[in-house]
Protein backbone atom coordinates (compact mmCIF):
# COMPACT_ATOMS: atom_id res chain seq x y z
CA UNK A 1 0.00 0.00 0.00
CA UNK A 2 2.68 2.37 1.03
CA UNK A 3 4.62 1.55 -2.10
CA UNK A 4 1.74 2.65 -4.30
CA UNK A 5 1.25 5.86 -2.37
CA UNK A 6 4.75 6.93 -3.32
CA UNK A 7 4.28 6.04 -6.95
CA UNK A 8 4.64 8.68 -9.59
CA UNK A 9 1.16 9.98 -10.37
CA UNK A 10 2.25 12.32 -13.13
CA UNK A 11 0.90 11.54 -16.59
CA UNK A 12 4.24 10.18 -17.71
CA UNK A 13 4.63 8.11 -14.54
CA UNK A 14 1.19 6.58 -14.97
CA UNK A 15 1.84 5.90 -18.64
CA UNK A 16 5.08 4.19 -17.74
CA UNK A 17 3.25 1.94 -15.27
CA UNK A 18 0.76 1.05 -17.98
CA UNK A 19 3.56 0.10 -20.33
CA UNK A 20 5.75 -1.71 -17.83
CA UNK A 21 3.10 -3.57 -15.85
CA UNK A 22 -0.07 -3.28 -17.95
CA UNK A 23 -1.40 -1.42 -14.93
CA UNK A 24 -5.11 -0.86 -15.58
CA UNK A 25 -5.48 1.10 -12.38
CA UNK A 26 -2.93 3.62 -13.61
CA UNK A 27 -4.73 3.82 -16.91
CA UNK A 28 -8.06 4.44 -15.19
CA UNK A 29 -6.49 7.47 -13.48
CA UNK A 30 -5.41 8.80 -16.86
CA UNK A 31 -8.87 8.17 -18.33
CA UNK A 32 -10.62 9.99 -15.47
CA UNK A 33 -8.14 12.83 -15.75
CA UNK A 34 -8.80 13.43 -19.45
CA UNK A 35 -12.20 11.93 -20.21
CA UNK A 36 -14.13 15.22 -20.19
CA UNK A 37 -11.56 16.97 -22.33
CA UNK A 38 -11.53 14.22 -24.94
CA UNK A 39 -15.33 14.04 -25.04
CA UNK A 40 -15.45 17.81 -25.59
CA UNK A 41 -12.83 17.60 -28.31
CA UNK A 42 -14.91 14.92 -30.03
CA UNK A 43 -18.01 17.10 -29.81
CA UNK A 44 -16.19 20.11 -31.24
CA UNK A 45 -14.54 18.22 -34.07
CA UNK A 46 -17.55 16.14 -35.05
CA UNK A 47 -20.38 18.46 -34.08
CA UNK A 48 -22.13 15.33 -32.94
CA UNK A 49 -22.74 14.96 -29.23
CA UNK A 50 -24.44 11.60 -29.69
CA UNK A 51 -21.33 9.91 -31.04
CA UNK A 52 -18.81 11.89 -29.01
CA UNK A 53 -18.68 9.55 -26.05
CA UNK A 54 -18.28 6.44 -28.19
CA UNK A 55 -15.51 8.20 -30.06
CA UNK A 56 -13.81 9.24 -26.84
CA UNK A 57 -13.94 5.62 -25.71
CA UNK A 58 -12.35 4.61 -29.00
CA UNK A 59 -9.65 7.23 -28.41
CA UNK A 60 -8.73 5.80 -25.03
CA UNK A 61 -8.66 2.27 -26.38
CA UNK A 62 -6.26 3.44 -29.09
CA UNK A 63 -4.17 5.22 -26.47
CA UNK A 64 -3.91 1.99 -24.47
CA UNK A 65 -2.92 0.15 -27.59
CA UNK A 66 -0.29 2.71 -28.55
CA UNK A 67 1.16 3.46 -25.12
CA UNK A 68 4.23 1.44 -26.04
CA UNK A 69 5.05 4.15 -28.58
CA UNK A 70 4.82 6.95 -26.05
CA UNK A 71 8.10 8.51 -25.04
CA UNK A 72 7.91 9.24 -21.29
CA UNK A 73 10.48 12.00 -21.59
CA UNK A 74 7.89 14.10 -23.42
CA UNK A 75 4.61 15.59 -22.28
CA UNK A 76 1.80 13.08 -22.23
CA UNK A 77 -1.01 15.50 -22.97
CA UNK A 78 0.01 16.52 -26.51
CA UNK A 79 0.64 12.85 -27.33
CA UNK A 80 -2.81 11.92 -26.01
CA UNK A 81 -4.37 14.61 -28.17
CA UNK A 82 -2.35 13.50 -31.16
CA UNK A 83 -3.69 9.95 -30.91
CA UNK A 84 -7.21 11.13 -30.15
CA UNK A 85 -7.25 13.64 -32.99
CA UNK A 86 -6.21 10.92 -35.42
CA UNK A 87 -9.01 8.64 -34.22
CA UNK A 88 -11.58 11.41 -34.58
CA UNK A 89 -10.32 12.49 -38.00
CA UNK A 90 -10.42 8.90 -39.21
CA UNK A 91 -13.99 8.66 -38.00
CA UNK A 92 -14.85 11.90 -39.77
CA UNK A 93 -13.31 10.80 -43.04
CA UNK A 94 -15.20 7.52 -42.84
CA UNK A 95 -18.46 9.36 -42.19
CA UNK A 96 -17.80 12.12 -44.75
CA UNK A 97 -20.36 14.29 -43.03
CA UNK A 98 -19.72 16.00 -39.73
CA UNK A 99 -23.13 16.74 -38.30
CA UNK A 100 -26.55 15.24 -38.64
CA UNK A 101 -28.69 18.34 -38.72
CA UNK A 102 -31.90 16.42 -39.31
CA UNK A 103 -31.94 15.28 -35.68
CA UNK A 104 -31.83 18.77 -34.21
CA UNK A 105 -34.16 21.70 -34.39
CA UNK A 106 -33.53 24.36 -37.05
CA UNK A 107 -31.56 27.37 -35.85
CA UNK A 108 -34.38 29.70 -36.82
CA UNK A 109 -36.73 28.01 -34.34
CA UNK A 110 -34.13 28.29 -31.60
CA UNK A 111 -33.75 32.00 -32.39
CA UNK A 112 -37.51 32.27 -32.09
CA UNK A 113 -37.53 30.61 -28.67
CA UNK A 114 -34.70 32.74 -27.40
CA UNK A 115 -36.15 35.90 -28.80
CA UNK A 116 -39.67 35.33 -27.50
CA UNK A 117 -38.84 34.06 -24.04
CA UNK A 118 -35.87 36.25 -23.41
CA UNK A 119 -35.14 34.37 -20.20
CA UNK A 120 -34.71 30.98 -21.79
CA UNK A 121 -31.02 30.70 -21.09
CA UNK A 122 -30.81 27.05 -22.06
CA UNK A 123 -32.28 27.71 -25.48
CA UNK A 124 -29.90 30.63 -25.93
CA UNK A 125 -26.98 28.49 -24.94
CA UNK A 126 -28.13 25.78 -27.32
CA UNK A 127 -28.40 28.35 -30.05
CA UNK A 128 -24.90 29.61 -29.39
CA UNK A 129 -23.48 26.13 -29.38
CA UNK A 130 -25.27 25.35 -32.63
CA UNK A 131 -23.87 28.49 -34.17
CA UNK A 132 -20.34 27.68 -33.09
CA UNK A 133 -20.79 24.17 -34.36
CA UNK A 134 -21.96 25.46 -37.72
CA UNK A 135 -19.11 27.93 -37.96
CA UNK A 136 -16.62 25.18 -37.12
CA UNK A 137 -18.29 22.92 -39.63
CA UNK A 138 -17.67 25.47 -42.35
CA UNK A 139 -13.92 25.47 -41.64
CA UNK A 140 -11.49 23.08 -43.33
CA UNK A 141 -10.86 20.12 -41.06
CA UNK A 142 -7.22 21.03 -40.36
CA UNK A 143 -8.22 24.55 -39.34
CA UNK A 144 -11.03 23.16 -37.22
CA UNK A 145 -8.59 20.95 -35.34
CA UNK A 146 -6.15 23.84 -34.80
CA UNK A 147 -8.91 26.16 -33.58
CA UNK A 148 -10.34 23.54 -31.24
CA UNK A 149 -6.97 22.71 -29.75
CA UNK A 150 -6.17 26.40 -29.27
CA UNK A 151 -9.46 27.73 -27.93
CA UNK A 152 -10.94 24.64 -26.32
CA UNK A 153 -7.84 23.20 -24.73
CA UNK A 154 -5.49 26.17 -24.68
CA UNK A 155 -2.61 24.50 -26.49
CA UNK A 156 0.11 26.80 -27.80
CA UNK A 157 0.93 26.98 -31.50
CA UNK A 158 4.04 24.94 -30.81
CA UNK A 159 2.06 22.17 -29.11
CA UNK A 160 -0.54 22.16 -31.87
CA UNK A 161 2.24 21.85 -34.43
CA UNK A 162 3.49 18.83 -32.52
CA UNK A 163 0.04 17.29 -32.29
CA UNK A 164 -0.82 17.86 -35.94
CA UNK A 165 2.73 17.15 -37.12
CA UNK A 166 2.77 20.42 -39.03
CA UNK A 167 5.23 23.30 -39.33
CA UNK A 168 4.66 26.09 -36.82
CA UNK A 169 3.87 28.78 -39.45
CA UNK A 170 1.17 26.55 -40.95
CA UNK A 171 -0.49 26.16 -37.57
CA UNK A 172 -0.25 29.90 -36.87
CA UNK A 173 -1.79 30.69 -40.23
CA UNK A 174 -4.61 28.19 -39.71
CA UNK A 175 -5.45 29.57 -36.30
CA UNK A 176 -5.45 33.17 -37.57
CA UNK A 177 -7.59 32.29 -40.56
CA UNK A 178 -10.03 30.23 -38.52
CA UNK A 179 -10.23 32.90 -35.88
CA UNK A 180 -11.05 35.58 -38.46
CA UNK A 181 -13.76 33.37 -39.96
CA UNK A 182 -15.28 32.58 -36.59
CA UNK A 183 -15.14 36.16 -35.45
CA UNK A 184 -16.95 37.47 -38.50
CA UNK A 185 -19.62 34.74 -38.35
CA UNK A 186 -20.21 35.11 -34.62
CA UNK A 187 -20.37 38.90 -34.83
CA UNK A 188 -22.77 38.63 -37.74
CA UNK A 189 -25.00 36.29 -35.73
CA UNK A 190 -24.85 38.50 -32.70
CA UNK A 191 -22.83 36.29 -30.38
CA UNK A 192 -20.92 38.53 -27.95
Amino acid at each position, binding site marked *: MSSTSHQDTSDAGLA*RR*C*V*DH*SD*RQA*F*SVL*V*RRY*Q*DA*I*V*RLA*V*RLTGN*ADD*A*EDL*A*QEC*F*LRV*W*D*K*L*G*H*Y*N*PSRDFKPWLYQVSTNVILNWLSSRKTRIDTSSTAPIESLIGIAGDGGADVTAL*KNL*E*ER*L*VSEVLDALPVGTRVA*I*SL*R*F*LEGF*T*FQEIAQIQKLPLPTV*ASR*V*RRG*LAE*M*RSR*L*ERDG*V*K
Partner: protein
Amino acid sequence: MMDHVKATDRMTDYVLGEGDTAERERIHDHIRTCQECSEAEIQERMAIECVERAMQLSTVASKGFADRVLSSLPEKPCRSAWRAYFPERRILAVFAVAAAMVIVASFFVVVDRFSRAPKLPVRVSANGAIVRLSMADLLGLQANGASYPIIYQSESSDPRIAAAALSVHVGFPVTPADLSAMGARFTTARMTTLDGRRVALSVMRYGANNLTLAEFDGKSVELPKLSPMSSKTREVLCGGEANCRMVAWKSRGRIFAIIGNIPDPQLIALAGAIPDAEPGPVSRRLAFFC
Protein backbone atom coordinates in the same frame (compact mmCIF):
# COMPACT_ATOMS: atom_id res chain seq x y z
CA MET B 1 10.59 50.52 -32.27
CA MET B 2 8.30 48.29 -34.31
CA ASP B 3 6.49 49.93 -37.18
CA HIS B 4 2.73 50.29 -37.18
CA VAL B 5 1.96 47.89 -40.05
CA LYS B 6 4.01 45.10 -38.50
CA ALA B 7 2.34 45.59 -35.14
CA THR B 8 -1.10 45.42 -36.74
CA ASP B 9 -0.17 42.26 -38.64
CA ARG B 10 0.99 40.51 -35.51
CA MET B 11 -1.72 41.74 -33.18
CA THR B 12 -3.52 38.38 -33.07
CA ASP B 13 -0.38 36.47 -32.13
CA TYR B 14 0.43 39.13 -29.55
CA VAL B 15 -2.95 38.87 -27.88
CA LEU B 16 -2.79 35.08 -27.98
CA GLY B 17 0.60 35.23 -26.24
CA GLU B 18 2.40 33.65 -29.20
CA GLY B 19 5.67 34.69 -30.83
CA ASP B 20 9.02 35.26 -29.20
CA THR B 21 9.37 37.44 -26.15
CA ALA B 22 11.47 40.13 -27.80
CA GLU B 23 8.93 40.67 -30.54
CA ARG B 24 6.06 40.77 -28.08
CA GLU B 25 7.91 43.40 -26.10
CA ARG B 26 8.42 45.49 -29.22
CA ILE B 27 4.69 45.26 -30.03
CA HIS B 28 3.89 46.12 -26.44
CA ASP B 29 6.09 49.24 -26.61
CA HIS B 30 4.48 50.27 -29.87
CA ILE B 31 0.95 49.87 -28.51
CA ARG B 32 1.79 52.20 -25.64
CA THR B 33 2.63 54.95 -28.07
CA CYS B 34 0.04 54.28 -30.78
CA GLN B 35 -3.58 55.12 -30.13
CA GLU B 36 -4.81 53.19 -33.17
CA CYS B 37 -2.99 50.00 -32.19
CA SER B 38 -4.13 50.40 -28.61
CA GLU B 39 -7.73 50.37 -29.77
CA ALA B 40 -7.02 47.50 -32.14
CA GLU B 41 -5.60 45.50 -29.25
CA ILE B 42 -8.75 46.00 -27.20
CA GLN B 43 -10.91 44.97 -30.16
CA GLU B 44 -8.73 41.92 -30.73
CA ARG B 45 -8.91 40.86 -27.10
CA MET B 46 -12.67 41.18 -27.06
CA ALA B 47 -13.05 39.21 -30.26
CA ILE B 48 -10.75 36.43 -29.05
CA GLU B 49 -12.52 36.27 -25.71
CA CYS B 50 -15.79 35.98 -27.59
CA VAL B 51 -14.47 33.04 -29.61
CA GLU B 52 -12.93 31.43 -26.53
CA ARG B 53 -16.20 31.71 -24.66
CA ALA B 54 -18.17 30.40 -27.58
CA MET B 55 -15.85 27.42 -27.94
CA GLN B 56 -16.28 26.32 -24.34
CA LEU B 57 -18.57 23.38 -23.75
CA SER B 58 -20.28 22.22 -20.65
CA THR B 59 -20.32 18.66 -21.92
CA VAL B 60 -18.72 16.10 -19.65
CA ALA B 61 -18.29 12.37 -19.90
CA SER B 62 -21.15 10.40 -18.45
CA LYS B 63 -20.81 8.62 -15.15
CA GLY B 64 -19.23 5.25 -15.62
CA PHE B 65 -17.39 6.29 -18.75
CA ALA B 66 -14.00 5.31 -17.32
CA ASP B 67 -15.37 1.95 -16.19
CA ARG B 68 -16.70 1.30 -19.65
CA VAL B 69 -13.32 2.10 -21.16
CA LEU B 70 -11.52 -0.17 -18.71
CA SER B 71 -13.92 -3.03 -19.32
CA SER B 72 -13.30 -2.70 -23.07
CA LEU B 73 -9.52 -2.85 -22.79
CA PRO B 74 -8.05 -5.90 -24.46
CA GLU B 75 -6.46 -8.52 -22.24
CA LYS B 76 -3.08 -8.20 -23.86
CA PRO B 77 -0.73 -5.67 -22.38
CA CYS B 78 0.34 -2.51 -24.16
CA ARG B 79 2.66 -2.96 -27.10
CA SER B 80 6.39 -3.42 -26.96
CA ALA B 81 7.65 -1.79 -23.81
CA TRP B 82 11.15 -1.41 -25.18
CA ARG B 83 9.90 1.17 -27.64
CA ALA B 84 9.01 3.44 -24.76
CA TYR B 85 12.66 3.84 -23.99
CA PHE B 86 13.69 3.86 -27.60
CA PRO B 87 11.66 6.50 -29.43
CA GLU B 88 10.64 5.75 -32.98
CA ARG B 89 12.66 8.54 -34.48
CA ARG B 90 15.77 7.23 -32.83
CA ILE B 91 15.07 3.77 -34.26
CA LEU B 92 14.67 5.29 -37.69
CA ALA B 93 17.92 7.16 -37.23
CA VAL B 94 19.74 3.96 -36.27
CA PHE B 95 18.34 2.18 -39.32
CA ALA B 96 19.24 5.12 -41.55
CA VAL B 97 22.82 5.14 -40.28
CA ALA B 98 23.09 1.36 -40.69
CA ALA B 99 21.71 1.57 -44.22
CA ALA B 100 24.12 4.37 -45.07
CA MET B 101 27.04 2.33 -43.74
CA VAL B 102 26.00 -0.70 -45.81
CA ILE B 103 25.74 1.47 -48.93
CA VAL B 104 29.14 3.06 -48.35
CA ALA B 105 30.72 -0.32 -47.61
CA SER B 106 29.16 -1.80 -50.77
CA PHE B 107 30.50 1.11 -52.78
CA PHE B 108 34.02 0.49 -51.55
CA VAL B 109 33.74 -3.24 -52.18
CA VAL B 110 32.58 -2.57 -55.74
CA VAL B 111 35.26 0.04 -56.37
CA ASP B 112 37.90 -2.24 -54.91
CA ARG B 113 36.72 -5.15 -57.00
CA PHE B 114 36.84 -3.27 -60.26
CA SER B 115 39.96 -1.28 -59.67
CA ARG B 116 42.25 -3.92 -58.26
CA ALA B 117 44.89 -5.11 -60.66
CA PRO B 118 44.52 -8.82 -61.23
CA LYS B 119 47.02 -11.03 -59.47
CA LEU B 120 48.31 -13.99 -61.32
CA PRO B 121 47.16 -17.39 -60.18
CA VAL B 122 50.62 -18.78 -60.00
CA ARG B 123 53.42 -19.24 -57.61
CA VAL B 124 57.00 -19.32 -58.76
CA SER B 125 59.60 -20.73 -56.44
CA ALA B 126 62.75 -18.86 -55.58
CA ASN B 127 64.79 -20.76 -58.15
CA GLY B 128 62.23 -20.09 -60.84
CA ALA B 129 60.74 -23.57 -60.86
CA ILE B 130 57.06 -23.85 -61.62
CA VAL B 131 54.83 -24.56 -58.69
CA ARG B 132 51.67 -26.41 -59.55
CA LEU B 133 48.45 -24.55 -58.88
CA SER B 134 46.13 -25.97 -56.35
CA MET B 135 42.45 -25.47 -55.75
CA ALA B 136 43.37 -23.39 -52.73
CA ASP B 137 45.44 -21.14 -54.96
CA LEU B 138 42.58 -20.64 -57.34
CA LEU B 139 40.04 -20.04 -54.60
CA GLY B 140 42.46 -17.71 -52.93
CA LEU B 141 42.81 -15.83 -56.18
CA GLN B 142 39.08 -15.55 -56.54
CA ALA B 143 38.74 -14.51 -52.92
CA ASN B 144 41.15 -11.69 -53.65
CA GLY B 145 38.69 -10.42 -56.20
CA ALA B 146 40.84 -11.04 -59.21
CA SER B 147 39.19 -11.64 -62.54
CA TYR B 148 40.67 -12.14 -65.97
CA PRO B 149 39.28 -11.65 -69.38
CA ILE B 150 39.24 -14.42 -71.89
CA ILE B 151 40.89 -12.98 -74.93
CA TYR B 152 40.64 -14.92 -78.13
CA GLN B 153 41.09 -14.37 -81.81
CA SER B 154 38.70 -15.54 -84.38
CA GLU B 155 37.87 -14.75 -87.94
CA SER B 156 34.52 -13.36 -86.94
CA SER B 157 32.69 -11.96 -83.99
CA ASP B 158 30.07 -14.66 -84.52
CA PRO B 159 29.85 -16.70 -81.27
CA ARG B 160 29.87 -19.94 -83.28
CA ILE B 161 33.17 -19.06 -84.86
CA ALA B 162 34.40 -17.73 -81.55
CA ALA B 163 33.58 -21.06 -79.95
CA ALA B 164 35.34 -22.92 -82.73
CA ALA B 165 38.39 -20.71 -82.34
CA LEU B 166 38.40 -21.29 -78.62
CA SER B 167 38.14 -25.03 -79.21
CA VAL B 168 41.35 -24.91 -81.22
CA HIS B 169 43.10 -23.12 -78.39
CA VAL B 170 41.91 -25.35 -75.61
CA GLY B 171 42.19 -28.55 -77.58
CA PHE B 172 38.68 -29.83 -77.00
CA PRO B 173 35.26 -28.95 -78.44
CA VAL B 174 33.68 -25.78 -77.12
CA THR B 175 30.21 -24.92 -78.36
CA PRO B 176 28.38 -21.56 -78.20
CA ALA B 177 26.11 -23.24 -75.64
CA ASP B 178 29.15 -23.97 -73.49
CA LEU B 179 30.17 -20.33 -73.69
CA SER B 180 26.68 -19.27 -72.86
CA ALA B 181 26.63 -21.67 -69.90
CA MET B 182 29.83 -20.04 -68.68
CA GLY B 183 27.97 -16.76 -68.69
CA ALA B 184 30.48 -15.34 -71.13
CA ARG B 185 29.83 -11.98 -72.69
CA PHE B 186 31.39 -11.08 -76.01
CA THR B 187 32.59 -7.73 -77.02
CA THR B 188 33.99 -7.38 -80.45
CA ALA B 189 36.61 -4.76 -80.14
CA ARG B 190 38.00 -4.33 -83.57
CA MET B 191 38.20 -6.20 -86.82
CA THR B 192 41.70 -6.20 -88.11
CA THR B 193 43.99 -8.05 -90.43
CA LEU B 194 46.59 -10.25 -88.88
CA ASP B 195 49.01 -12.34 -90.90
CA GLY B 196 46.81 -11.96 -93.94
CA ARG B 197 43.69 -13.17 -92.11
CA ARG B 198 40.66 -11.16 -91.20
CA VAL B 199 40.57 -11.35 -87.40
CA ALA B 200 38.17 -10.08 -84.80
CA LEU B 201 39.77 -9.29 -81.54
CA SER B 202 37.14 -9.96 -78.89
CA VAL B 203 37.02 -9.94 -75.19
CA MET B 204 34.97 -12.15 -72.94
CA ARG B 205 35.09 -10.64 -69.58
CA TYR B 206 33.94 -11.73 -66.17
CA GLY B 207 33.32 -9.52 -63.26
CA ALA B 208 34.30 -6.27 -64.90
CA ASN B 209 32.44 -3.92 -67.14
CA ASN B 210 35.23 -1.80 -68.47
CA LEU B 211 36.96 -2.68 -71.69
CA THR B 212 40.49 -2.73 -70.49
CA LEU B 213 42.69 -5.64 -71.33
CA ALA B 214 44.38 -7.50 -68.57
CA GLU B 215 47.93 -6.65 -67.73
CA PHE B 216 49.77 -8.95 -70.06
CA ASP B 217 52.80 -6.80 -70.19
CA GLY B 218 52.31 -5.02 -66.94
CA LYS B 219 50.31 -2.22 -68.54
CA SER B 220 46.68 -1.89 -69.32
CA VAL B 221 45.82 -1.46 -72.97
CA GLU B 222 42.53 0.19 -73.70
CA LEU B 223 40.61 -1.32 -76.54
CA PRO B 224 40.02 1.85 -78.51
CA LYS B 225 43.75 2.05 -78.96
CA LEU B 226 43.83 -1.32 -80.66
CA SER B 227 42.70 -0.06 -84.01
CA PRO B 228 44.70 -0.60 -86.02
CA MET B 229 46.43 -3.14 -83.90
CA SER B 230 49.68 -1.69 -82.73
CA SER B 231 52.86 -3.64 -82.98
CA LYS B 232 53.04 -3.71 -79.24
CA THR B 233 49.57 -5.21 -78.91
CA ARG B 234 50.31 -7.65 -81.67
CA GLU B 235 53.39 -8.67 -79.83
CA VAL B 236 51.48 -8.99 -76.59
CA LEU B 237 48.74 -11.10 -78.03
CA CYS B 238 50.31 -13.07 -80.84
CA GLY B 239 54.02 -12.40 -80.83
CA GLY B 240 54.81 -15.96 -81.94
CA GLU B 241 52.94 -19.16 -82.10
CA ALA B 242 55.46 -20.85 -79.87
CA ASN B 243 54.64 -18.54 -76.99
CA CYS B 244 50.90 -18.54 -77.45
CA ARG B 245 49.39 -20.11 -74.39
CA MET B 246 46.01 -20.60 -72.94
CA VAL B 247 45.31 -20.58 -69.24
CA ALA B 248 41.87 -21.48 -67.97
CA TRP B 249 40.55 -22.25 -64.55
CA LYS B 250 37.29 -22.53 -62.76
CA SER B 251 36.64 -21.09 -59.39
CA ARG B 252 33.42 -21.00 -57.41
CA GLY B 253 31.37 -21.76 -60.47
CA ARG B 254 33.05 -19.20 -62.66
CA ILE B 255 35.50 -19.89 -65.46
CA PHE B 256 38.52 -17.81 -66.23
CA ALA B 257 40.87 -18.13 -69.12
CA ILE B 258 43.64 -16.27 -70.85
CA ILE B 259 44.61 -16.98 -74.39
CA GLY B 260 47.40 -15.33 -76.26
CA ASN B 261 51.06 -14.77 -76.45
CA ILE B 262 52.28 -14.41 -72.90
CA PRO B 263 55.66 -12.77 -72.63
CA ASP B 264 55.36 -12.24 -68.90
CA PRO B 265 57.52 -14.86 -67.11
CA GLN B 266 54.90 -15.36 -64.46
CA LEU B 267 52.25 -16.01 -67.05
CA ILE B 268 54.48 -18.42 -68.86
CA ALA B 269 54.91 -20.18 -65.57
CA LEU B 270 51.18 -20.12 -65.09
CA ALA B 271 50.55 -21.63 -68.50
CA GLY B 272 53.06 -24.32 -67.76
CA ALA B 273 51.40 -25.07 -64.48
CA ILE B 274 48.23 -26.19 -66.19
CA PRO B 275 48.38 -29.92 -66.86
CA ASP B 276 47.81 -31.27 -70.34
CA ALA B 277 44.29 -31.46 -71.54
CA GLU B 278 42.26 -34.57 -71.65
CA PRO B 279 39.52 -35.00 -74.19
CA GLY B 280 36.01 -34.48 -72.89
CA PRO B 281 33.25 -31.99 -72.45
CA VAL B 282 34.24 -28.55 -71.50
CA SER B 283 32.76 -28.78 -68.04
CA ARG B 284 34.76 -31.90 -67.17
CA ARG B 285 37.82 -30.46 -68.72
CA LEU B 286 37.59 -27.26 -66.72
CA ALA B 287 36.81 -29.20 -63.61
CA PHE B 288 40.04 -31.02 -64.22
CA PHE B 289 41.89 -27.75 -64.27
CA CYS B 290 40.60 -27.03 -60.82
